[in-house]
Structure formats: C-alpha cells, structure tokens
C-alpha cells in the first residue's frame, strides 16, 4: 500500500530493541505467510448492529464532553467506527469478519502475539450520518508488516481499510492500524497510593556520635538539650560546638516539654511513602528558648496556628522496620479542636 510507514515508529516511546532470537527460516516463512493476507477481504458487507441513533450519539457526546449543537441532528463524524463495532455481544457469527481475517489473527495468536493495541486511525468523512441511517461496511487487509520490536513487545502491524456506506452513498473511509504483539513482561507501574503509603516504613533517625545523647534521652522519655559550659547558651539540634562562643564543652539540660508553635507548614506534595498528606509540620519554640522541627498532633492539620501552646509527647511507631519512639508535640487541651 502507499503511505506505509516504518511501523516501529508507532511504538509508544522508546527506540527499537534488538530482535529476539528466532529461527530465521521459520520466521521468514511466517512473515511470507502473513504477507499473503494483504489485499484479502477482512469484512464483506457487514451491517451496523444499530442504526445511527440519538441515544448513542448523546452517550458519545457526554463521554467526550462535546456540547456542540450540531449533534444529535447529525452524528459526530468521529463516531464513524463506533457504528461498525460489534459491542459486547459481537457481530453475529459469520456475518461480518471473513475467514481470512480470523485466520490471520489465529496465526498471530499462535505466534505468541496475543495482545492488540491500536496505533493509527485515519478517517475521511464524505457524508454526515443522521439518526435512522443504516450503515454497511466492507474492509480489506491493506498490509501486514514484518515482525517489529516495539516498547510493548514484538509483533506485527496490520492495516485495514474500511468503507462505510449508507445505501449506495459512501459515508466515510476508515483506515485502522493495530499492533498485534507478544507482551513484554514489565514491573507494575509505581503509583503513590494511600494504601501503599500506610505500609511504607518511616525514615529512621540518623544517630551518630554528635547526637547519640539526644536519642538516648528520647528512649528514656526525656527531651535533652545541650548547654554550653563556656557561655551557658542552650542549643538544639545537638552539635559538637557552641554556635555562640565556639566552646566544645557542654552539658545536657532536660527541657520541660512545653512550648508554642513558632511556625508551621502543611505538607501536600510531593507525597512521601511513609506519610499520608496533608499533614502539619511545626517549628516549636520551647519555653527554654530553642526551636525544634516536629510533628503536631492532637489537632487537624488545618487547625494548627502560630502561637498555639503545645506539649511534648512521645509517639511510638510500629512499622515494617520495627518500633521506635519519636518526640512530637500535642496541641494542649484548651486549644485542641
């Protein structure tokens, strides 16, 4: 046929993969046999299952969001193929597809090409279809490509051309190309689903020589700060030296656990597997004067307010990686909603 393209182009996305190992002679014989179907009739005088009708036009327009007032007085021209479809029940056996068409598809199924996907559709509309029109159609197998490797899998592009008539009028032509292929196994598409999020483990604290004292405190349900012994300045997070005077000498000081929300954000995006958005993250100013980033509990994410009093609590987390405890801050009773 004219207009035949490099069929591999139609593969969604990627460059062609190297061909799979097959017996070249056997492959050649199959390709030749498939090629012999070109020019054969695929459908002989098929009949539309329903006449062109307003309900199907309306359903189509609803699905497409097409509000054009031109319909349903005429059918949307792009419905052309819909009038030829067999639907769930299919066309009555033997009424539409020829044995050539079934034989071609049978050969491809036997060759492992059991899946099908449409790649091209070219339609010309010569006469509008109106409710009451009864369509009849004929189709010919225009071309069968050699075996191609595509992103979906290896297979054959089959092009058919259909003429759709109403009485003796040619209403439209419909050229359709499908890829009949052997699917490549692939890993499931990753998607950030809320159910998956609940199962993912939370990230663990990174405990090192500089901050291990803090985490030992948490384990004992004590919130420990550092106090510089050179200048008495409290600091958090834990660091090896004083940010004010530079002294490496320090001692621990236990925080009371009371504070206020100094600032906060609500996380919506990007989703992180262990957390289900939206959720609030607060910057809490302790009464001792230092600030900590932590979760705010006991209040909906959208009720967290700057200046809201909060109190330390320890959150026990049990998940796929085991259990741990984390210091978080609960909105105190009088503020909780």
């Amino acid at each position, binding site marked *: 046929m004219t207009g035949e393209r490099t069929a591999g*182009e*139609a593969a*969604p*996305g990627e460059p062609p993969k190297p061909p799979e190992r097959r017996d070249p002679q056997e492959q050649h014989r199959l390709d030749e046999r498939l090629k012999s179907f070109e020019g054969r009739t695929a459908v002989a005088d098929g009949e539309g*299952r329903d006449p062109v009708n307003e309900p*199907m036009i309306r*359903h*189509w327009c*609803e*699905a*497409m*969001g*097409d509000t*054009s*007032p*031109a319909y349903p*007085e*005429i059918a*949307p*021209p*792009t*419905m052309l*193929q*819909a009038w030829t*479809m*067999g*639907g*769930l029940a299919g066309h009555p056996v033997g009424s539409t597809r020829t044995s050539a068409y079934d034989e071609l598809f049978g050969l491809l199924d036997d060759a492992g090409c*059991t*899946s*099908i*996907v*449409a*790649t*091209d*559709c*070219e*339609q*010309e*509309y010569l*006469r*509008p279809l109106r409710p009451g029109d009864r369509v009849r159609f004929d189709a010919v197998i225009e071309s069968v490509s050699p075996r191609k490797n595509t992103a*979906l*899998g290896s297979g054959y592009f089959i092009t058919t051309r259909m003429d759709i008539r109403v009485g003796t009028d040619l209403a439209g032509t419909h050229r359709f190309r499908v890829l009949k292929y052997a*699917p*490549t*196994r*692939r890993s*499931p*598409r990753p*998607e950030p689903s809320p159910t998956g999020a609940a199962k993912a483990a939370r990230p663990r604290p990174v405990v090192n020589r500089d901050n291990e004292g803090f985490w030992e405190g948490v384990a004992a349900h004590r919130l420990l700060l550092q106090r510089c012994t050179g200048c008495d300045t409290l600091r958090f997070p834990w660091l090896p030296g004083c940010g004010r005077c530079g002294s490496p000498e320090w001692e621990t000081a236990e925080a009371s656990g009371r504070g206020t929300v100094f600032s906060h954000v609500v996380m919506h995006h990007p989703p992180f597997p262990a957390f289900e958005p939206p959720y609030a993250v607060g910057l809490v100013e302790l009464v001792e004067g230092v600030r900590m980033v932590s979760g705010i509990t006991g209040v909906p994410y959208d009720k967290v307010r700057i200046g809201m009093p909060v109190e330390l609590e320890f959150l026990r987390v049990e998940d796929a990686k085991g259990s741990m405890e984390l210091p978080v801050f609960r909105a105190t009773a009088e503020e909780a909603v």
Partner: protein
Amino acid sequence: MTVRAGDALPPLRVPITRTLIVAGALASRDYQDVHHDAEAAKEKGSPDIFMNILTTNGLVGRYVTDHFGPRARLRKVAIRLGAPNYPGDEMVLRGEVTSVADGAVEVAVTGANGIGNHVTGTVTVRLPDADAPRTDVPAASSAGPAVSAAPAEDPR
C-alpha cells in the same frame, strides 16, 4: 473569522480519569478489557487500563470543532498514538493551522500527557462559508446569517 496558517488553537486540558476512559470505551462500543479492567490490562503487559483510540479520535475532533464552531464540518481526522493515556494523567491538546485552502482548514494537533505525546495528528475541517452551496448541512445553518461570523464568536 479569518483563519491563517500559523494560527494556534487555545490548548484544551483533559484530565484522564478512569471514568473518561471507561465512558469513552463504552460510548464507542469498545469492550476490549484493557480499557476497563485493570487486572486484565496488567496481564497483557500494560500497567493499567488506558484510553482507546476511538476516544482519542473523538476528543481530537471535538477539540477542533469546539474552536471553529458548530457549523464547521470535520472532513478528515488522521491520528497516530504514542504514549498511552493512563488514569491520573492529564492530556493537553494543542493545535496549529497548517494550511487554509478553499474553506478547508488543516490543523496539526498534538496531545501531550505526563509520559510524552499521546497523539499526533492532522484534522481537516471545512468552514461554513465554503459550505453554502452544499446540500448535506442542516437547512437551518445554510439559511443562517453571514457564515464567517459564527465560529469567531464561539465563547469557548
């Protein structure tokens, strides 16, 4: 409405919902399981259900007739599919007039989703001013006022 080669159509954003995919498949009488059954789609190597070509065809046609108005008539729609339209994605249709001759306007259309180009195609549409002598358009429109004004005033 003066149409010139190089004119861009305003983009149309189409959220790809499961509902759209299934509604489009059923409205087009396409009961292939890959368009409504996620498990069956996975069995066949696809990560999820995906939009059928008839729905894409319908959306591309609608995109062009939305722009040129209800009295413009589609003459030809030729599309090629690339990256599938999976649920949760969004497709943005864009079009550019590539030629205007004797009232027939050719528009190059692309529909990009989050993976790549879902569709590339060419649509030929006949504008109503060239349709005056035709007999296949509804009587109301052939008797209408100056035909060139109709599509330009379409608020969409």
